[in-house]
């Protein structure tokens, strides 16, 4: 470190002033207000009024450059609770890309500097909690398998064949679970 504590304080003050100006920007206040109303964020910034009206996507993307937590939430909001936003007719390419990846379980791109491990957890927290978008997968079953599925659907009982397969997968995973290292990022 080459700057003294006093120099750091002086420079930090200037930066902080610039940031406070951005916090006063109507776009930032509107986006914060919408996210606070939805319970996605909370803040002690004075004068942020919770609001129910949708905010333009462009404003949300700009506010995300001021507050990284907004950017972190945006992919989940776009997929699970897009009514928070007023979407333009043509979405930016990276927005389309991240929405497509989440909806279809494709490899996730970084979203405006936010890595997937930071934005993905919010997909199950935003909107209908505990739900992530379902992905269409096709499998070829033998006739016996189809009959087994039908029997299980009635005997469990399950709402659908998909529910049977989901339960079976959960059981299989639980019975074969091993401690796997978790990526701490």
């Amino acid at each position, binding site marked *: *470190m080459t700057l003294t504590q006093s120099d750091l304080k002086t420079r930090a003050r200037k930066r*902080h002033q610039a*940031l406070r100006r951005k916090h006063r920007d109507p776009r930032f206040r509107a986006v914060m207000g919408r996210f606070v109303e939805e319970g996605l*964020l*909370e803040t002690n910034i004075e004068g942020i009024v919770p609001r129910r009206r949708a905010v333009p996507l462009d404003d949300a993307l700009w506010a995300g450059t001021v507050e990284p*937590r907004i950017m*972190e939430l945006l992919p989940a909001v776009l997929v699970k609770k897009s009514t928070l936003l007023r979407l333009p007719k043509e979405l930016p390419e990276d927005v389309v890309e991240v929405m497509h990846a989440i909806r279809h379980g494709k490899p996730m791109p970084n979203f405006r500097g936010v890595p997937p491990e930071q934005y993905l957890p919010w997909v199950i927290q935003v909107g209908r909690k505990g739900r992530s978008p379902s992905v269409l997968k096709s499998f070829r079953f033998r006739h016996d398998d189809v009959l087994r599925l039908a029997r299980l659907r009635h005997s469990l009982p399950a709402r659908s064949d998909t529910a049977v397969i989901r339960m079976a997968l959960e059981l299989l995973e639980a019975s074969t679970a091993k401690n796997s290292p978790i990526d701490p990022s």
Partner: protein
Amino acid sequence: MDNLAQLFRTLDQWVARENIRARVEGTPAYGSCSVRVLGQSALWAAGVDLTLIATQDLDAYADYEWAVQREFERLLAEDGKVLDPHGHEVWMPGETRYDPLYQGTFVEAFVADADAVLISKALKAAEKNRALVTEYLAKGASERFFELAQKYRVDLEQFV
């Protein structure tokens, strides 16, 4: 986050009730547990004079049993919050002080001190917490903060 102490009180009362039931039924009772709140939630609970913007998640170190954790998660959810499943992996400096937040019969809760939380954020998630650390420096960070920054080689110049 304002009612975090109340939430721990409710959890304590739940454990007490469950333990009475366990005694009646002759089943094992839950042991005492300790929860240490970290991250933004700790700053919030400490009432620091900083601009805070927080998501719904709460990071904590805890030694509770699984059922107690589930009840804790349920109580948090009632408040619109979620326990971060990776919260226990948060790095905190060894010098972190944990100030008492709630002291009950079965549950005790603490909050990490602001200097330690800010050092953790500055070191492990600088980009996300740039505004927070900059504001702290602008308002006159404590001597202890600078000492911790030096010890853990936090480049404070990146925040100005």
